[in-house]
């Protein structure tokens, strides 16, 4: 099986009511007929501006939100055909790293509990085995064993993102969905996290779905790019091809907006 995940014709609509009493509804199509397939062991980047539906797409793929229409296949199995117990065990294989490491770690839990929780939920290993796993993982993401006793607020943004990554990887997933994992970080920290994600991918043969609005990062990490706008797929293809010969006007505009490339436009 070449594709680890495939989704066909996903549709998700949000309705907005306006005014206090009026029933006028605005329907926003966050996803309209989006199909996506993610190749095993590769990195697929989904790019687009805010409101383009990229996060909705990511969340719908692991059924954090229900789509209105369309089908999702993980390793060839239709997710809707699974019982809830089966869905739970499938989710073990799809983990997510979130954008905001400040908001996605429970401030009242110690790091060791944060990392143990997914193992308990999925009923993996005995307590002593879990502790071993946790220790190994925290060192792998570049933190120390002492850090396990600490709370999230004692860490910097980059360190918290490492914890978020450790939590996602502790279940040995096959697919990791990274929703803007480095957008909130300084460039120096960003570089560390990107290197970490790359080396983890090699070591654990991970597949990444990488959601970002920063095209410079895409170039460094992605094998393929999927450009979205207003809930629709604009174009997709190999990273080099998208960057060197974009087909749609929108992709061209996005590429032209990358900071650092625009000096020529200025009248100096």
């Amino acid at each position, binding site marked *: 099986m070449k594709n680890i995940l495939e989704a066909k014709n996903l549709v998700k609509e949000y309705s907005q009511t306006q005014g206090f009493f009026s029933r006028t509804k605005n329907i926003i199509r966050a996803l309209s007929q989006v199909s996506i397939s993610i190749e095993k062991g590769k990195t697929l980047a989904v790019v687009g501006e805010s409101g383009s539906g990229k996060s909705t797409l990511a969340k719908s793929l692991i059924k954090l939100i229900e789509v209105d229409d369309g089908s999702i296949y993980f390793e060839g199995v239709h997710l809707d055909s699974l019982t809830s117990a089966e869905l739970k065990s499938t989710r073990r294989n799809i983990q997510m790293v979130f954008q905001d490491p400040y908001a996605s770690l429970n401030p009242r839990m110690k790091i060791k509990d944060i990392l143990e929780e997914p193992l308990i939920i999925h009923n993996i290993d005995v307590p002593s085995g879990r502790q071993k796993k946790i220790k190994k993982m925290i060192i792998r993401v570049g933190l120390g064993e002492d850090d396990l006793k600490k709370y999230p607020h004692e860490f910097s*943004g980059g360190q918290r993102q490492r914890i978020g990554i450790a939590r996602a990887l502790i279940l040995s997933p096959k697919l990791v969905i990274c929703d803007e994992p480095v957008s909130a970080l300084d460039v120096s920290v960003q570089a560390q996290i990107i290197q970490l994600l790359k080396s983890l991918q090699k070591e654990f043969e991970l597949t990444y779905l990488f959601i970002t609005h920063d095209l410079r990062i895409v170039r460094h990490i992605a094998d393929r790019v999927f450009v979205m706008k207003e809930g629709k797929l604009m174009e997709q293809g190999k990273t080099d091809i998208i960057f060197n010969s974009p087909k749609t006007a929108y992709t061209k505009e996005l590429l032209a907006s990358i900071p650092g490339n*625009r000096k020529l436009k200025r009248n100096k």
Partner: protein
Amino acid sequence: MNKDLLEINQLTISPKNNPQLHLVDDISFQLKKGKTTCIVGESGSGKSLTALSIIKLLSNQLSASGKFFFNGEDITNIPEKEMRLKRGQNIAMIFQEPMTSLNPVLTIGYQIQEAVKVHHNLEKNQLQKRTHELLDLVGIPSNRASSFPDELSGGQRQRIMIAMAMSCNPTLLIADEPTTALDVTVQAQILDLLDNLKNKLDMTMLFITHDFGVVNDIADDVIVMFKGKIVEQGSVKNVLSKPSHPYTKALLNCVPDSAGKKVLKPINYEKLYKMMAK
């Protein structure tokens, strides 16, 4: 004729309850008239504090020492009353998060008028005219004056903030990460707008950012800050293509380039400190 609009000498900022800790440590720099100077640095490098100290809006928990000269005039110890006149009139500032800087329950037209009224005594219809002029200047249709901030997009809100900053034709505009919260395409538009306004209104700009791409696009001069100190300053061309300080070099190695050829190298701080100690 003085070539520097603003001169800062030996600025040090410390918390009042811990004077030994220097958040900004003995920095001096000048802003050339009509040029855009960027301060780049990571979070915590002191770049925002430096900007706030110029318009004397530092938190009262912090104390700043050092000398400030604006257009040749010593503004180090001028009373708050005079400083209020300078703020807006001579020095204006825009911030990163436009939504938190706007009042959500007042129309944008009212808020722009408010800014104009502080410094100019205008008749009602003149005030309205000026508001429409300002909206025009930043590319917002003047019939949007009756809109509330939540009815606007992030980019439009930032344009409103810029309109308010422009209300008194300031000579110095301080922009603290004005495009960080925006999409790339919108960011490109706002950078163009700021650059055009700078040329049109003959302003000097101090632009704070952490993005070297933005620096390359907008700046004439760059100041690189690290842990409260200036580690390097010079023209964009020199600093970006021939960085001399190890920190600048290391930081530039972390910046992803759109060609994707470069290998990202995270900063090795131990090595960096050793090199800096030399």
